[in-house]
């Protein structure tokens, strides 16, 4: 586990997920009530980037089939997704977002 630079805080907009690749990892960042969260960016159901999906009420909804995950915990909330999405630790320092990979 190591903190890796992900993005500038200023590039993140409330309720609009941001997808990026750090090394080999596809990560999605979220600004939720002023707090930054990070999950894996690939849906556990089929290949789709969650950052292309729809964010609302603390959840990210997959753009392919509208399966929903809790952004804070990664829990799978509704069909067709059943497997949780991986969540990562996040640190914000000096306007920069670091993800614990």
């Amino acid at each position, binding site marked *: 586990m190591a903190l890796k630079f992900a993005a500038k805080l200023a590039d993140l907009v409330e*309720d*609009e997920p941001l997808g990026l690749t750090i090394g080999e990892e596809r990560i999605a960042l979220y600004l939720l009530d002023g707090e930054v969260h990070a999950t894996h960016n690939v849906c556990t159901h*089929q290949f*789709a980037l969650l950052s*292309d*999906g*729809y964010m609302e009420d603390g959840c990210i*909804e*997959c*753009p*392919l*089939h*509208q399966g929903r995950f809790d952004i804070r915990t990664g829990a799978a909330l509704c*069909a*067709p997704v*059943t497997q949780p999405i991986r969540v990562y630790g996040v640190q914000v320092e000096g306007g920069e977002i670091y993800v614990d990979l």
Partner: protein
Amino acid sequence: MHAQIMTRTALIIGAGQAGARAAEALRTHGYEGRIVLVGDERHAPYERPPLSKDVLIAKDDDDCFNGWVHAVERYGDARIEWLNDRVLRLDTQSCVATLERNGELRYDHCILTTGGRARQLPGAPEGPHTFYLRTLDDAMRLRARLATAQSVAVIGAGFLGLEFAASARTRGLDVSVFETASGLLSRALPPMFAERLRMKHETHGVRFIFDVKHLQVTEHADGVQVDATPFDLGVIAIGQEPNDELAKAAGMATNNGIVVDRHCRTSAENVYAAGDCANFPYGANGRATRLESWQNAQEQAIVAARNIAGEEIAYAPTPWFWTDQYDWNIQMLGLPDGEIDQWIERAGVDDKTVLMGLRGGVIAHVLAINQGGELRAIRRLVEEGVAVDPRMLADPTIKLRQLDKLVRSTHSGDQGVLV
């Protein structure tokens, strides 16, 4: 009084997606009695969308299917009795179902989630080289056949036929699609959109033969013949027929499916129906509608179950469909019924696009290619029939994800002026 007499029984007939969702919803919404889920397939309940795609193109046999509705332990944990059996008769007067192997079962509530079956092409029964695709066993048989075949004739350019065609091309087969209409999906998609999908398939090497007057598939020793052309196999995908015979034989109202009201109730007391087999009143004018979709199987079944569990909910969906073909995920929101006054398109990079059809000032129909998130962002405006200024829809500086908030704040502003 004997304890068992006090226990209610909910019988769910049909163990597909709708049946399994109904069973789960009964339990999670407080139904305390027995829940018996009867299905005539040997598999635990599963979802069908992967059958025409993942199952056919996955590399390994071992992980070519993961569409189970619930993990199998879930049935035991929720005290759902899943029976692999067939219901032969339903007596809605005495509330008794007769099962082929398990004898008679008395129910207090019944949900019919009997689904549908592949429509048969006259003169072309399933055979060694003639395939229909509805069940997991059908898909596995087809998967095995695709491993050795070179060429396939697809009969029918509907969603299923096109998804299969894309999968077969992905596996490198020669694919010809035969269709009696003059284009693909002419009832589901506006012509300009259907045209793009046709070109997508043609770019991938699919050959279309439209306006076929009389479709005939003839089996030979080593393949089939369609329109005088030989193929290794034929896949017939000309639609679905609802399994409503059990209900009909029990005296229930049927008409292209089992007729239900807005609360999913059939004409028989304490009997409900949901999913592909149910014909329900849709929209403000209550037009008799039967939807064959993942969403309908899911949501209508849950509404039926919740009504049995004591709620009073009307089923009023905004129909939503998706189809995955090649690298396109196409989503459709709303039904293609009635005239569209104006189409507004927001095209993105690659093939990404959102097409919004306006009728009477509201978004009535949305089509999207690889833009599910964008479509989702305006779903509530469609569901609630909120009036939207077409100039806002066309304005590229306004994000669709901001539109909902923006439209509503504009509307509340209007009200402020009126007051």
